[in-house]
């Protein structure tokens, strides 16, 4: 019997701990498929964040490192400088990448570190039970913004791709979503490009993936996808914010 | 000579740290134990600068010299700060162009050398420090003349080796002062 569908080799045969309806699973799969297609699992080193994907080191079959909260790009920098011929990626959430690790994110980007960053933005701190994230929308209710995010006191959400696209070290900054099949296909193309860029030595590549958190948003998985389309996409428009064909390295 | 502890003090930019380095290297050329410890921090930026130099036959304990056997002072502040700390029987060499004071201590040997004026007169601008080092060499014998010459060759950067000759002239001028 012909096999028409199977788990990517780069994805471990382990049950994920993610909540029902969470899109981390899809994003993990896309990263693993890309590793398979590029044949790079054996030379890839992944760096996990602190957040919901903290245990992703068990889910990928490539070598993995668990970093401290926000420090994944610094750890990835250390690995890449030691092993320039290997492929190094980070997989980070919004709190990790855009709050506690902002400095590491911005400076690895502006150095043009030749690494790949997968940034999962679900506008909330999931693992700790649903607190305000740097990407929580104005008015959005969370455990620590019980009256909705008041921009007068809690400030405005960070648009990461827009911000990083101003930096000369960034080769690719693209925002995608995984709410529909066409969007998933597009997301995979972007992730593949972000890895290919690294193989080609083009410099810092980041793919921001808009993701859902049905559990902490208090919605069903289907409602969550609709909420993402209705609320997140207007504030975080999908698209390519920066794509330097010739790369940023001289 | 079992050992000698020295302090070199003045303004940043007078070559105080360099003078100390030449002195320490001179000891090294004679295979003595030596140490050179600079003051550091904001005070280096145009303010006072000083360094401690030890030359000894024995391993050096504290490299920080609080009571020097020999002192070079190139400004009033340094003179005021260190002249009282020189050990009885010690030597002080003072740039009298810049310091218009004389100590009333009679238990130390104080020498007043108008080094900055001499440097100008002898076309040795910027080498007042080395003139004073020459005087210190004569009065303490911290090393041999040959060792000082070798030390200067080491301390003057390769691209500035043409400055070696004026440096040696400065040493000699100091010894004769």
């Amino acid at each position, binding site marked *: 019997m012909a096999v028409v569908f199977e788990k990517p080799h780069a994805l471990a045969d382990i049950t994920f701990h993610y909540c029902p309806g969470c899109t981390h699973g899809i994003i993990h799969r896309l990263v693993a498929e890309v590793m398979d297609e590029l044949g790079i*699992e054996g030379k890839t080193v992944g760096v996990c964040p602190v957040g919901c994907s903290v245990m992703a080191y068990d889910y990928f079959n490539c070598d993995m490192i668990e*970093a401290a909260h926000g420090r994944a790009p*610094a750890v990835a920098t*250390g*690995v890449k400088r030691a092993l320039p011929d*290997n492929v190094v990626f980070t997989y980070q959430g919004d709190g990790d990448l855009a709050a506690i690790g902002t400095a590491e994110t911005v400076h690895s980007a502006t150095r043009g570190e030749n690494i790949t960053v997968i940034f999962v933005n679900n506008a909330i701190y999931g693992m700790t039970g649903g607190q305000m994230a740097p990407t929580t929308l104005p008015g959005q209710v969370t455990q620590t913004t019980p009256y909705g995010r008041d921009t007068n006191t809690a400030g405005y959400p960070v648009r990461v791709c827009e911000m990083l696209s101003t930096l000369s070290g960034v080769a690719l900054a693209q925002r995608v979503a995984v709410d529909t099949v066409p969007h998933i296909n597009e997301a995979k193309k972007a992730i593949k490009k972000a890895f290919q860029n690294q193989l080609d030595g083009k410099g810092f590549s980041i793919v921001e993936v808009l993701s859902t958190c049905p559990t902490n948003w208090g919605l069903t998985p289907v409602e969550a996808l609709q909420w993402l389309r209705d609320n997140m996409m207007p504030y975080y428009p999908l698209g390519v914010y920066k794509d330097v064909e010739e790369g940023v390295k001289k | 000579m079992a050992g000698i502890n020295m302090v070199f003090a003045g303004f940043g930019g007078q070559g105080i740290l360099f003078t100390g380095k030449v002195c320490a290297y001179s000891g090294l050329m004679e295979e003595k134990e030596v140490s050179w410890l600079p003051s550091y921090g904001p005070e280096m930026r145009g303010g006072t600068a000083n360094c401690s130099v030890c030359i000894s036959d024995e391993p050096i*304990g504290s490299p920080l010299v609080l009571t020097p056997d020999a002192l070079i002072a190139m400004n009033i502040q340094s003179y005021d700060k260190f002249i009282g700390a020189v050990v009885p029987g010690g030597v002080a060499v003072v740039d009298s162009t810049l310091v218009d004071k004389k100590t009333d201590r009679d238990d130390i040997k104080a020498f007043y050398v108008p080094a900055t004026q001499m440097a100008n007169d002898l076309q040795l601008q910027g080498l007042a420090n080395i003139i004073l080092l020459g005087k210190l060499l004569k009065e303490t014998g911290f090393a041999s003349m040959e060792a000082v010459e070798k030390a200067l060759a080491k301390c003057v950067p390769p691209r500035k080796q043409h400055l070696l000759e004026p440096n040696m002239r400065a040493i000699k001028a100091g010894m004769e002062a």
Partner: protein
Amino acid sequence: MKGNEALGEAALRAGCRHFFGYPITPQTELSAYLSKVMPKVGGTFLQAESEIAAINMVLGAASAGVRAMTSSSSPGISLKCEGISYIAGSDLPCVIVNVQRGGPGLGGIQPSQADYWQATRAPGHGDLHAIVFAPSTVQEMVDIVFRAFDKADEYRMPSMILADGMLGQMMEPVEFPEREVHKVEKPWATNGHKGERKHNIVNSLFLQPQQLEDKVKERFARYDLVKQNEVLAEEYLTEDADIVLVAYGASSRISRSAVNSAREKGIKAGLIRPITLWPFPEKNIQAACKTAKAFLTVEMSMGQMVDDVRLAVNGARPVYFYGRTGGIIPSPAEVLGQIEEISGGVK
């Protein structure tokens, strides 16, 4: 050569090709030196955006299996504590240099030894240790850099070199002996499995308490080996000493001068100089209890190592303390005064 530069050159010769740092006085010459030479030997010198990033870059490079180093001074080390904890918790080797200055807070920039507790008790959160070395001369800094890398690799733990502003800034003659770089197999490194082994994971997260306890106990069994095998100390005139001084680093040099002066005055003084602060040379102290009538600990702090001296002496002899802090280096005369005072009391 300046102490800081000697540290840099020694690291290169010990096979370190990856340095990550952030500028802070009084350790800057180390970074400056390596920024000059690393590119010439194909190594990495990276000025990080923060102390935190620098230590995490070290974590990454160490995970990749290479010898990595960072250096800082007291306030910067506080920022690195997070990373040091993760490095210890992930069983990674690396070398961290602390050229101590006065604290707390921004403190000052003059030499100090007030980070002893931090280095030996809590270089980060959790149950952990770093091997802590305390050189006292520029030459010893060089020798210790080699040892620090070797021992870090051997025991898979961070090594810390606890220097101070005086040792970092001073110049002394130094020789670089020809030494072979110890190559240690690192089968645990995350450097790509190449399809030849299971994937490696470098991690400090263990959510099951039993699993975490087992992991910590395994690490402490290794720490026990370090305690058994890696203690270093130098003794000076202790055989017949009535008063034994205990001091490390810069203050040990001042103490040595004071011991010499005391001997000239007919007081039998000696010096124990711990070269490793963790593990602490408690056996040397205990052995000295047999002849010594009293101990005097001298530090550039309000009294930190004196705790370890008291623990080792365990009440058998009086333990006195003399220290200056805030960046003030005690003078040999001050220490001699203390020796004379104690000597008067114990006769």
